[in-house]
């Protein structure tokens, strides 16, 4: 396994796409800080699975929507695992409803966690990355940021915002060997999409939901040295749904 000079931080890392991403990056030699909000057992299970596979992982409890979380997360990760050179902004929440009935709280909660927190973490991540002249940031957006999905105007706004932020930050830091990309998963079988998939399957060209591992594989590529000329991109991972 390659020995890395720094670490990777994955938010929303205890389950689903985040956990699969943490495992994939650990398999590539990255020590991984797994940021979780509530499910300590799941975060620890992911860390244990990584350790059993010969990797290194460290759980960090934080609510990324807290304005002070970014510094705390980076300080904890860097104290344990070294400078953070990879950031995967995966933490996300849903609070669905048709626009006429969507409350201010539902709007703010989704924007705060899915977009504002990702910006704060990105801003903080650029410090060690600029110094290292290397960095990889991957934002987990969604096809909902690219194509309408009634009932999710808050989620769509946050995810479209992530795509826009990805492009601009990518252009700002490209000359420092730091890449910033997004993945836009379609319907992936996770806790967040439970109950939605059966109705969706026949609309998806591959006729099934994706797996967290299939998204994680794309993130792993974007983090790799091989992806050094890919920046500002949004990689759609949706089984052809938006093709």
């Amino acid at each position, binding site marked *: 396994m390659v020995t890395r000079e720094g670490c990777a931080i994955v938010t929303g890392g205890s389950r689903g796409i985040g956990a699969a991403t943490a495992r994939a990056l650990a398999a590539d030699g990255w020590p991984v800080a797994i940021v979780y909000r509530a499910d300590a057992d799941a975060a620890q299970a992911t860390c244990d699975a990584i350790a059993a596979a010969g990797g290194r992982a460290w759980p960090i409890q934080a609510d990324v929507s807290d304005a002070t979380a970014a510094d705390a997360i980076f300080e904890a990760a860097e104290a344990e695992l070294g400078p953070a050179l990879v950031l995967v902004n995966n933490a996300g929440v849903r609070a669905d409803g048709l626009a006429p009935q969507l409350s201010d709280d539902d709007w703010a909660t989704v924007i705060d966690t899915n977009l504002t927190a990702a910006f704060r973490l990105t801003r903080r991540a650029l*410090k060690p990355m*600029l*110094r290292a002249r290397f960095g990889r940031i991957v934002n987990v957006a969604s096809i909902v940021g690219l194509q309408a999905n009634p009932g999710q105007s808050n989620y769509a706004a946050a995810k479209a915002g992530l795509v826009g932020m990805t492009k601009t930050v990518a252009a*700002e*830091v490209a*000359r*420092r060997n730091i890449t910033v990309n997004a993945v836009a998963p379609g319907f992936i079988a996770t806790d967040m999409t439970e109950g939605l998939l059966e109705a969706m399957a026949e609309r998806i060209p591959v006729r099934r939901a994706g797996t967290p591992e299939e998204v994680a594989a794309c993130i792993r590529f974007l983090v790799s040295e091989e992806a050094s000329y890919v920046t500002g991109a949004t990689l759609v991972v949706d089984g052809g749904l938006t093709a």
Partner: protein
Amino acid sequence: MSATVTAEQVEARVLEALVTFGADADVVSRDATWEQLEVDSLDLVELAQVVEDEYSVEITSQDMQHLLTVGHVVDMVVERAA
């Protein structure tokens, strides 16, 4: 820390940082402009980080617009660290 900050120290540290960012050591001086040093906006952001980490002085993007030379940065750091 602020009690011991002198203009000479800050100037030496700023010049050192600029050289590590790629500025030509023979051209770096207190009066040099960013254009002369081929220092770009991202270099200045990094310089602001160094100053914040080491002198606890925050230089904002608004401040940056008025800082046209190495000397301007040194003077601002010394003034704010005092």
